[in-house]
């Protein structure tokens, strides 16, 4: 009972949310490093004018795969690793609502990520060299560049099929976590007592299940255009490639909030713990998160100002875009007010959380400058936009996620990461990111377009580009420090108690790492800060170390893995133009689902 099963089989068949969380973490970290290597190659190419580290074709693949990898294979699944590991613990549950569906989500994510990245290596199978058939149409893959006529190779096929597979993973996880958070809460854990991270996770899942169908439809159209001669994005047939832009950004802007809301949730949990103060304006933080979720659906066309949508559409989307800065700004003031007057402990997690606030403000401010169409016309497709997206997604999401990693690492592994190394990591990364991304504002405004593999010395941006490259390599050094910290902590890290930080939420009431059943006794929650003493109540009693009676833990299952394999196999069919392969994939999926539905499995 208390001993977790060991061995490869126990991992392949696991349905334990904690193990799935760890699998998500290690897989996403690996993809994050691959995406980082791609970034380093891009920066090496741009270090000097007229660079020749890589060819134009390779460069196209590098920036496409860098963006796609970071958004879909690194940031989203790193957040998912915390959804998996932490959310059930924060709500006082023994697992998620659908443990096998959870395993299915992970395997689909892994296989989809491998499918996308296989494109680097399998060129020879398509009568091309290695490093020749990776996606090369940009991470938002604008039509009609992505049509067969203009992109005849399998590059875009890998991209659109890979993204379809990954979408299924996110959707399945979305349904699962909505039900988990709404339905599996411990007695007394009212909605307005949920920790902010869990709240932001809930909002994120609603965005996922509503936004992903839209990109799925956009990708299905592209698939029919490329494989079956349809004309969804073909101008000559009366269609408009702008349809793709609408469908993509209708998904793409909620996606921005899918990426940032979990990080905002993490920061809203980390700051109160290390300021020893409840979150300032918890209710406002929650409601502004929900408001961001709704408003995130009304701003997509600000990605399309340069299309020429007309003055009405431009004005409306400019107004909504400026408006959405309000709930975001509200949160920033809440975080600052949380720190104000607190008994602050300068841990690494707090460093990252405060760094998040500062960097996200810069990203947010440059974002507001895009909201004005005349200004945006100057910025579109320049490095200014690249600077903005990196301040938001690296300065915002990544710093927030690292705050979460340092904060929850002891809970997830039982050992504390080294604090001195952590601070080295933070300062190197903080310095590196500002060196890498701040000059991009100027590079862009001086007229350097993004996605062009080289530039002339006459443009006058050579020095700024070199600084940016130095910054990128500094980030790489910071990552090496982080990896060393992880490696060192395996053996030499200080063992963590149940609650190394003095946190208020339920995950700190149980051992680190938690036993398979999480809670020996399901706690009864009587306040929003159950483990703290406040004016109205004392701290809750932690669950006993030994469960009073036997606890049934569900066994593993092979079928989520089998079903997940069906999807990439089906995707191979159009890629290789072989019809029977699709039946093999469908059969795998069907057998997996049927065996899964009818096997005895107790939750």
């Amino acid at each position, binding site marked *: 009972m208390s001993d977790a099963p060991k061995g490869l089989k126990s991992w392949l068949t696991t349905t334990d949310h904690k193990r799935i969380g760890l699998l998500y973490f290690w897989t996403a970290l690996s993809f994050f490093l691959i995406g980082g290597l791609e970034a380093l190659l891009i920066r090496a190419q741009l270090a000097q004018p007229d660079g020749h580290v890589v060819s134009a074709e390779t460069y196209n693949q590098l920036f496409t795969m860098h963006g796609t990898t970071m958004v879909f294979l690194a940031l989203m699944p790193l957040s998912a690793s915390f959804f998996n590991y932490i959310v059930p613990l924060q709500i006082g549950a023994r697992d998620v609502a659908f443990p096998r569906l959870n395993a299915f989500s992970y395997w689909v994510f892994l296989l989809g990520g491998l499918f996308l990245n296989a494109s680097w290596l399998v060129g020879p199978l398509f009568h091309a060299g290695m490093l020749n058939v990776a996606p090369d149409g940009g991470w938002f893959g604008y039509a009609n560049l992505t049509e067969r006529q203009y992109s005849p190779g399998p590059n875009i096929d890998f991209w659109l099929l890979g993204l379809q597979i990954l979408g299924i993973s996110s959707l399945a996880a979305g349904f699962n976590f909505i039900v988990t958070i709404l*339905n599996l809460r411990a007695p007394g854990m009212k909605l307005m007592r949920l920790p902010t991270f869990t709240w932001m996770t809930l909002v994120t899942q609603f965005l996922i299940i509503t936004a992903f169908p839209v990109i799925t439809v956009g990708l299905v159209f592209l698939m029919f255009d490329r494989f079956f001669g349809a004309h969804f994005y073909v101008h000559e047939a009366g269609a408009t490639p702008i*349809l793709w832009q609408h469908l993509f950004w209708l998904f793409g802007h909620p996606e921005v909030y899918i990426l940032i809301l979990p990080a905002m949730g993490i920061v809203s949990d980390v700051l109160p713990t290390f300021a020893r103060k409840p979150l300032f304006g918890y209710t406002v933080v929650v409601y502004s998160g929900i408001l961001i979720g709704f408003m995130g659906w009304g701003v997509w066309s600000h990605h399309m100002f340069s299309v020429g949508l007309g003055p009405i559409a431009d004005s409306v989307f400019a107004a909504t875009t400026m408006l959405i800065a309000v709930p975001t700004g509200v949160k920033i003031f809440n975080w600052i007010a949380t720190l104000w007057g607190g008994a602050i402990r300068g841990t690494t997690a707090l460093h990252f959380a405060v760094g998040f606030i500062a960097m996200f403000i810069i990203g947010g401010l440059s974002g507001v400058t895009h909201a004005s169409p005349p200004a945006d016309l100057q910025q579109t497709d320049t490095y200014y936009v690249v600077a903005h997206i990196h301040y938001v997604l690296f300065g915002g999401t990544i710093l927030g996620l690292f705050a979460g990693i340092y904060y929850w690492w002891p809970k997830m592994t039982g050992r504390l990461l080294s604090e001195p190394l952590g601070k080295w990591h933070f300062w190197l990364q903080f310095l590196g990111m500002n060196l890498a991304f701040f000059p991009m504002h100027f590079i862009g405004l001086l007229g350097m377009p993004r996605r062009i593999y080289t530039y002339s010395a006459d443009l006058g941006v050579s020095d700024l580009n070199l600084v940016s490259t130095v910054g990128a390599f500094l980030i790489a050094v910071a990552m090496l420090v982080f990896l060393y910290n992880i490696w060192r902590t395996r053996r030499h890290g200080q063992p963590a108690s149940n609650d190394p930080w003095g946190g208020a939420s339920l995950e700190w009431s149980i051992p680190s790492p938690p036993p398979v059943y999480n809670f020996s006794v399901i706690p009864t929650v009587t306040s929003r800060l159950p483990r703290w003493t406040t004016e109205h109540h004392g701290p809750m009693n932690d669950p006993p170390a030994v469960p009073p009676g036997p606890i049934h833990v569900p066994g593993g299952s092979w079928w989520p893995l089998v079903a997940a394999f069906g999807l990439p196999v089906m995707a191979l069919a159009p890629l290789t133009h072989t019809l029977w392969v699709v039946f093999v994939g469908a059969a795998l999926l069907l057998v997996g689902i049927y065996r899964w539905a009818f096997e005895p499995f107790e939750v």
Partner: protein
Amino acid sequence: MTHAATAHRTSMGLDNRKMAFWAFIGSECLLFGSLISTYLVYKGRSVVGPYPHEILNIPFTSVSTFDLLMSSLMMVLALAAVQRGDMKWGKIWLFSTALLGLVFLGGQVIEFTEFVHKGLTMSTNLFGCTFFVLTGTHGAHVAVGVLWLLTLWVRALQGKLGPANAMTVEITGLYWHFVDVVWIIIFTVVYLIQ
């Protein structure tokens, strides 16, 4: 099937699987919403024929629509029968629902074949693209529903489906009615309002 989940206490008092299905249906609304919007945006923009008014057969599709509506009635009856433990009629109604679903799919096969003979394929014009992908996606949903209903029917024949599984039948019904409602919108938008 996971019966244990139904037995557990849930915070909202709603069965886990049922809540997941409502979320799924919400998600599907965006899927069909995008497809139907695209159909409307591209309406009248085909540069060559056949055009919708030359080819759509409203009387034929009205029969299919009636057939699908009736299948929803069968589904209601099936659920009612299973809930009151009348498995004899439960089996009959489940099978009838699946059968009417199959008839609808047969109608779609006939319709698609006829259109192709009249020169409308996916690569002919924008009407062909949007029509086949929209109605084809709906047809795929019906096909999944038929497979699901037949599975339940076989389980019932084996004696493995009883009143204890009423929630499973109810969720199947949720899906089936949703697919039916989507068809009513498609029928109105594509066939009736030309």
